[in-house]
């Protein structure tokens, strides 16, 4: 059933967020430390385990794939609810600080990636293209 997939996704999310919360508390910070990332890893492992045993029927999968496909629309809604006006009313200090952080971050991507990227191109094997082309 489709709901099994959605429930699996929700369960991984809740478990990940709880772990992230505990991690944050252990380090004494008032924040969730990587809960979403942990949830992603949980989903990868749990679905991998179920798939290997043939316990992940297509209908269950479609419950996860629906939310996967909703990702870009959700991001568009997120963009539309950003506080863009405040970003531009912060003055030059805020704008320059933000711009410099992005420019330096982007510039460092190729530095850290290194030249040897031939072992890192599994994109054609991706199961879905959420944008729907």
């Amino acid at each position, binding site marked *: 059933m489709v709901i099994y997939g959605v429930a699996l996704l929700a369960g991984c999310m809740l478990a990940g967020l709880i772990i992230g919360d505990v991690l944050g508390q252990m380090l004494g910070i008032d924040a969730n430390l990587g809960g979403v990332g942990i949830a992603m*890893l949980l989903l990868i492992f749990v679905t991998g385990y179920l798939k290997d045993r043939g316990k992940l029927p297509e209908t269950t999968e479609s419950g996860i794939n629906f939310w996967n496909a909703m990702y870009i629309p959700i991001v568009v809604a997120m963009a539309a609810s950003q506080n863009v006006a405040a970003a531009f009313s912060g003055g030059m200090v*805020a704008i320059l600080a933000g711009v410099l952080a992005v420019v330096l971050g982007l510039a460092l991507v190729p530095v850290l990636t290194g030249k040897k990227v031939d072992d890192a191109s599994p994109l054609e094997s991706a199961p879905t293209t959420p944008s729907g082309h």
Partner: protein
Amino acid sequence: MNDSIVSLVDKYHLIAAFAVVGLTMYIAYWLSRHLTAGRLHGSAIAIIIGLALAYVGGVSTGGSKGLSDVTLFSGLGLMGGGMLRDLAIIATAYGVRFQEIKKAGLRGVIALFLGVLVSFVAGAAVAIGFGYTDPVDITTIAAGAVTYIVGPVTGATLGASSEVIALSIAAGLVKSILTMIATPLTARLIGLDNPRSAMIFGGLIGTTSGVAAGLAATDARLVPYGAMTATFYTGLGILLAPTVLFLAVRAIF
């Protein structure tokens, strides 16, 4: 008649948001195909339209949640809010190969630490350049350049003034919004086309909304890799900025 339509749309705000976003996507993909011949990805255009609408909404209502502060579009706040966004981000991990993550894991962790440090230093340098000399002010603005959550949390911990905290939030918002727009435009230049560079990108930039939208606009298949590292970034920033990094700033000034 008009009133009843407005109140109906307001009552079914999430459903209205689905329709509005669907229409936006349709227009964006149409523009992508016919005006840019597919060179600028439809999702990139949709995100830019979203940001433009958010600006209009913010200016016209004076609220802090972009277009979703307009009553008719309040569902956008729920649809694009943290809860559904994180659910969808996690869903993108379905089908990801763990080996790819393991292979880039160490570089991803290095990228995380370097990313927080570089953004902090960039913010601090700008703050100092504009004449701030109080270590609390410098640290708060610098933390804002990490993310718009790290900034106010750090400022609150250190007891910064509300103007400086507002400034740090603005710096983080600029970073997030610029990431959404600049990522698809620079992706080819910085080699952002494989899981490894996506994980490094997520660690270096870190601001979740920026990374999420930036990668969506570049290649949606890269999203899980970038999001994976980026979700640790804000936590790491909150851990480092008010402690180690603040002490470092205070030692210098």
